[in-house]
């Protein structure tokens, strides 16, 4: 649990980031650095996939709000996917819905980012 490395991969020109089991301050900060690195490298489409994420704390969410701002500020697009019911409840409670799009799966997120107008409505 001391490991706070965040897994990430590039799918075509989109980056997908996996926060791991527990999104706390340290892991959120790792995501922040990774997003900055992706933006610096010219990547403008980013997905954060919460499939493996059991718990998220409010410090992690605060940092995530900053990440959303910096991606938006760089004319990028960020989509969150695979949130379980309670994490989604937490995000709604803290008003993230108005800042970022949340979809059910990574595939839908990637379709949204590719701007496929037909598929994106699913």
């Amino acid at each position, binding site marked *: 649990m001391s490991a706070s490395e965040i897994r990430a991969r590039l799918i075509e020109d989109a980056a997908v980031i996996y926060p791991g089991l527990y999104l706390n*301050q340290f892991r959120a900060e790792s995501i922040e650095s990774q997003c900055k690195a992706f933006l610096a490298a010219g990547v403008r489409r980013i997905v954060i996939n919460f499939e493996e994420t059991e718990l998220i704390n*409010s410090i992690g969410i605060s940092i995530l709000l900053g990440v959303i701002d910096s991606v938006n500020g760089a004319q990028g697009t960020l989509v969150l996917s695979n949130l379980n019911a309670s994490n989604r409840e937490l995000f709604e409670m803290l008003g993230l819905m108005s800042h970022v799009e949340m979809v059910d799966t990574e595939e839908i997120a990637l379709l949204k980012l590719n701007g496929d107008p037909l598929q994106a409505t699913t």
Partner: protein
Amino acid sequence: ARPASEFELVIPIEDDAELIAARTAEQIARAADFDQEAINQIKTALIEACLNAAEHGDSPDRKIHQRFAIDEDKLIITVSNKGKTFGRANGQATPALGAQPVKGARGRGLQIIRALMDEVEFERTDDGARLVMTKYLKRPGSQ
């Protein structure tokens, strides 16, 4: 009818110790027949309670004490920490869980806890602070 049974857990303020607390709470809540949705709410509330104890309690022993009492129809969790309380108002930086102070969703820990649990009481004690939060078992047909 199950008699009240009590568990206690003391965790250090460090690393992801609150995650261990959340998973212990999950085991206890499951043994008390809570469903997974309620269990996740209890875990998230406990995480926030631990963050508050770490942030606001200037605890000399760097520990967070938790008590879990399973009663007939509810789980009562008490989270307490020693140390004189300090808020961010007096200019001290967040003491635990990293150096950088953060904004946004913070300042809303108690709000999150209140939304996820059924009853929440926060009180300053002689030597620290104590948060008592209760979650009721939803019985079939008890809506």
